[in-house]
């Protein structure tokens, strides 16, 4: 801001009263850009392109863009400006490259329709691409028909909220909706993402908050999460994505109050956990997924107060998982409650509600008197003999499970809930 101050200094001698006021404001409110210039971009005026406005702008300026359609390609924002669309002006990339590239800190982009990025299998082309900028805010945009929606590389601090991102809906060429790489302290809130490869993609992104987003109808994962420690995600909905949500090679993540639903497909999961440790999964709802949670190589994951409703199989836990706990969850209407590929079990189940439990509670402590074995005999047979799935829903499959209840020794998997709840658990 040195130029403005200098300008005011010159005026000091011309208009003392004005100068005093300006100085007072400057003194008492030094961070606000009250003295920032506002540049309006409008067709038919001198500043008829955003490019011109940016080249004119100083750090801290506000560039307001009037409603119109602007054709842009690789618009580089290298100054700390606030780019604000009035009544959703359209930025059209004519299917060439990236639309907006941010290479400065303290940039805000708000209120635009950003559409038609280029599509390339080699270079990641995005609606908004942030490279090395900190404190970036991307708010309330509609990003449509882009390969990647919002792409953050090496960004520290920022907010991505209230955006709607709808991709090109191509199985092969779609990129990710919100893509974070080596970025930290990013707040991703209330976005709607669909038609992308992955709805939200995190790689080496830490200390982020992902909340109240809706990620649906993406071709691969609703959320894809790798090497990204210490993140929280809460109150998100992941619906009908090709393979559900994948969280991999990560520790210290908190997943609460999310909904994972309708992820159906032969290799689809509500939530896929691979090499996850010391994380919390609580108060989530897993509904109508082929597999509610698929766990591989997890340790010390706490799953509590989750609802597993009408999934093909609620939880598949491979034998390399250890010290995970499942407590106070509801298992209702799942074809299989639990499957595993081993016989030894190093995990802990307690106090869950299982609708298939047929035990009794003679001492009225609201806990079943005999343990519940969530791994059914038929699912153990399928484990050994995959083609036995041919008998799914047959009379013999049902009889096998009934037989196992009468003769628990038929079962070889050593997994119990010793205190199954008699009633559905309400939080």
């Amino acid at each position, binding site marked *: 801001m040195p130029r403005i101050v200098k300008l005011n200094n010159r005026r000091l001698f011309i208009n003392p009263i004005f100068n005093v006021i300006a100085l007072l404001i400057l003194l008492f409110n030094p961070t606000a850009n009250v003295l920032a210039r506002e540049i309006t971009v409008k067709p038919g005026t001198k500043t008829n392109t955003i490019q011109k406005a940016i080249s004119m702008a100083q750090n801290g300026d506000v560039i307001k863009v009037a409603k119109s359609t602007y054709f842009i390609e690789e618009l580089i924002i290298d100054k700390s400006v606030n780019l604000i669309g009035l009544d959703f002006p359209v930025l059209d990339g004519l299917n060439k490259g990236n639309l907006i590239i941010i290479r400065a800190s303290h940039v805000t982009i708000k209120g635009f329709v950003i559409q038609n990025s280029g599509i390339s299998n080699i270079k990641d082309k995005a609606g908004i691409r942030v490279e090395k900028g900190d404190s970036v805010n991307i708010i309330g945009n509609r990003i449509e028909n882009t390969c990647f929606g919002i792409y953050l590389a090496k960004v520290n601090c920022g907010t991505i909220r209230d955006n709607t991102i709808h991709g090109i809906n191509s199985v092969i060429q779609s990129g990710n909706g919100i893509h974070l790489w080596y970025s930290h302290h990013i707040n991703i809130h209330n976005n709607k993402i669909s038609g992308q490869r992955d709805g939200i993609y995190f790689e080496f992104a830490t200390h982020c908050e992902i909340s109240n987003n809706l990620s649906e109808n993406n071709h691969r994962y609703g959320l894809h999460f790798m090497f990204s420690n210490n993140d929280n995600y809460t109150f998100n909905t992941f619906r009908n994505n090709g393979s559900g949500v994948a969280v991999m090679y990560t520790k210290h993540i908190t997943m609460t109050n999310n909904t994972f639903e309708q992820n159906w497909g*032969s290799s689809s999961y509500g939530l896929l956990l691979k090499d996850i440790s010391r994380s919390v999964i609580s108060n989530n709802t897993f509904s109508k997924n082929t597999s509610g949670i698929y766990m591989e190589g997890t340790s010390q994951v706490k799953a509590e107060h989750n609802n597993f409703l009408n999934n093909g199989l609620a939880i598949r836990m491979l034998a390399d998982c250890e010290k995970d706990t499942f407590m106070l969850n509801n298992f209702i209407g799942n074809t*299989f409650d639990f499957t595993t590929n081993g016989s030894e079990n190093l995990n802990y189940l307690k106090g869950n509600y299982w609708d298939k439990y047929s035990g009794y509670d003679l001492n009225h402590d609201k806990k079943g008197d005999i343990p519940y074995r969530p791994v059914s005999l038929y699912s153990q047979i399928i484990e*050994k*003999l995959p083609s036995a*799935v*041919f008998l*799914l829903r*047959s*009379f013999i499959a049902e009889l096998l499970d009934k037989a196992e209840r009468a003769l628990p020794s038929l079962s070889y998997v050593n997994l119990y809930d010793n205190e199954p709840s008699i009633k559905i658990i309400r939080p």
Partner: protein
Amino acid sequence: MYKIIKYVLHDIFRNRILLAYVVLLSLSSFGLFMMNEDVSKGISSLLTVLLIVVPMVSILFTTIYFFNSYEFIELLVAQPLKRSNILLGVYSGVGLSLLAAFWVGIGLPIIIFDGTVVGWYFLLSGSLLTMIFVSLAFLASVLTRDKTRGIGISMLLWFYFTLIFDGILLMVLFAFSDYPLEKLTIFLSCLNPVDLARIMILLKMDISALMGYTGAVFNQFFGSSLGIVISISVMLIWVAVPIAIALRIFERKNL
């Protein structure tokens, strides 16, 4: 023959057991649809009814009806009527009544609540299963003169198709688990119409996603129009062959 069908229908529609069957089916289907807010879950629960109750009632009701009408059939044989026409007439009458019962008891609720492709597959398979087990019942009935033995044979057939066959199949799969068996199981499923019906419906339901590689192989076969034509043809063969054998036996049977 049409006259015989007419009179069998006239008789059977007053039958209380048939009425009870309709009520049972209606109660279970309406109940399951009302209980599960989710329609596909209702269908899924109804699948058990379709695969166990429908074959059982079809085969037992038909066998009992046949033996209860034995003297009536004798009376008809003493008339100037061809034996094949008499048996086919009674067969069509019983078959039509059980089909009607199935459509009223299960078809109507499914059309009201569901009406999707799964539902239509369900109704098609159910109709074919009904006719197959009516055919099998006629075969069981003409094999013996004794009502108790006839019912016994019918129960055995039902038991075989709903349980024993699958048990043997499971053992075969275990014994040859080192080999890729998916294609073989497609062939083996043709040997049991109940399995065939179950697979056809399952593959149209969400639950098929659970079936993994086996399901993929099945889907490739049963999902193709050729596969559907083949499986429906196999079911029709299952309708035709038992009643054809029953006819041959009945032509020479001493009443």
